[in-house]
């Protein structure tokens, strides 16, 4: 009996990305630079988050031509973003043959109440989360990979750190609870009981947990790995830096050897300027992408 699109096949794909860096790219040339630097996957976009911020207006799924161009350029997996709740954009991406769909707060949400029913897709999904409850709600909808939301396009790691610390501390708390406390905790977190039970028994999410949203230097990547991330997404941080090739390579190495400070000191020498970055408190509430979705 051959089965496609099983939970194991979808989650397993994310397991293979562990310890790696997934990079945002907007064309074939950038995709090739990312692959040559050792990226484990690329996210094909029309604009990186920093430019989406700058452009304003409604951000939608990328032009399929851009996605196809990237798919043809590299042999590593290609991901693409659909708007939160926009299951038709997601079906189009699935038809294009992308390897993973990011139901992403970087784009303007299409639905303010419901997320996509991801269990009904053959292609796996990655979703952002700020805490354990949000992560488990997305997993129950069928997400096969979780990443912190962070604050995309800012080059500022502070929100990603907040989300990862929140999630890890909640996981440790749930792990140490007695079983009779779990149902109340499920109610408080707004999380499905069976998934919370899994976290209690295993001390981790049932899927891979990456860091994303504001990572822009090798040290940022290593910081997120030490806080418990399984890998990192770098959006604007690579191609908005002075020297994308060097930055990409250095971030890949720092993610593998995140405890080797001598190596990182070496890697960080003469890298040039990272992306400029935005102080989070200077953003108005409606400019904060992390607030999108629930």
């Amino acid at each position, binding site marked *: 009996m051959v089965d496609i699109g099983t939970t194991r096949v979808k989650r*397993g794909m994310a397991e*293979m990305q*562990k310890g790696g860096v997934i990079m945002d790219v907007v064309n074939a040339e950038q995709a090739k630079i990312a692959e040559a630097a050792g990226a484990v996957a690329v996210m094909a976009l029309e604009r990186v988050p920093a430019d989406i911020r700058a452009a304003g207006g409604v951000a939608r799924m990328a032009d399929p031509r851009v996605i196809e161009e990237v798919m043809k350029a590299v042999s590593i997996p290609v991901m693409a973003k659909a708007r939160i709740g926009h299951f038709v954009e997601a079906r189009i991406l699935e038809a294009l043959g992308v390897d993973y769909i990011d139901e992403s707060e970087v784009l303007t949400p299409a639905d303010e109440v419901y997320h996509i029913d991801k269990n009904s897709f053959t292609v796996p999904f990655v979703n952002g989360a700020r805490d354990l409850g949000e992560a488990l709600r997305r997993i129950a909808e069928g997400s096969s990979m979780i990443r912190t939301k962070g604050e995309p396009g800012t080059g500022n790691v502070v929100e990603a750190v907040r989300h990862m610390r929140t999630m890890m501390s909640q996981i440790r708390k749930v792990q140490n609870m007695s079983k009779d406390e779990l149902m109340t905790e499920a109610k408080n977190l707004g999380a499905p009981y069976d998934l919370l039970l899994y976290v209690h028994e295993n001390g981790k999410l049932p899927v891979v947990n990456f860091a994303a949203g504001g990572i822009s230097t090798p040290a940022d990547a290593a910081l997120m790995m030490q806080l418990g991330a399984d890998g990192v997404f770098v959006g604007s941080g690579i191609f908005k830096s002075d020297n994308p090739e060097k930055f990409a390579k250095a971030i890949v190495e720092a993610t593998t050897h995140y405890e080797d400070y001598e190596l990182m000191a070496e890697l960080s020498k003469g890298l040039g300027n990272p992306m400029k970055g935005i102080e989070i408190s200077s953003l108005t509430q409606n400019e904060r992408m992390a607030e999108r979705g629930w």
Partner: protein
Amino acid sequence: MKVGVLALQGAVAEHMKIIEMAGEKAVAVKKVEQLEEIDGIIVPGGESTTIGKLMKKYGFDTALKDFSDQRKPIFGTCAGLIILAKEINGTKDSHLGLMDILVERNAFGRQRESFEVDLEIEGVADNFRAVFIRAPYIMDVKENVGILSIYNGKIVAARQEHLLASAFHPELTDDPRMHKYFIEMIREYKSQRD
């Protein structure tokens, strides 16, 4: 006995869990020096281009060839199979180039075509649940390579003396039989060396 798992990128923790389930000690290998303390190593699934680049960067390309020259067993799964192959279809490059096999990358299609199926694997099991994720397969082998499993006419597991390779991911199930087979290989070659 200590079994290493090359820990540069990919599904490292899953392999370590199954090695321990099979009753042996697992070591995550990040540095070349660690190869001295282990008796066999698994090159896990992940992205072969990423793993290949990092291997070269840190000298694992030559160190693992020496490891193999000492007849210490190596088991490559999915990306690891590509790393072991002497020939990769469509490119002149290879990584370790240890096994006399020709492989095709992403040979079953993209992620949406990824699948799981029950396989017969010679010497291992007749009903092994095998998970294929953007998997490669072996297009051709030299006569010194033993074919262990075929799916849809394609070679998906093979052994050449102390080298073992599978196109699927035995670490993604709770079935330790493939890992036990590899551990037996390590034991066999260890006793020959001692």
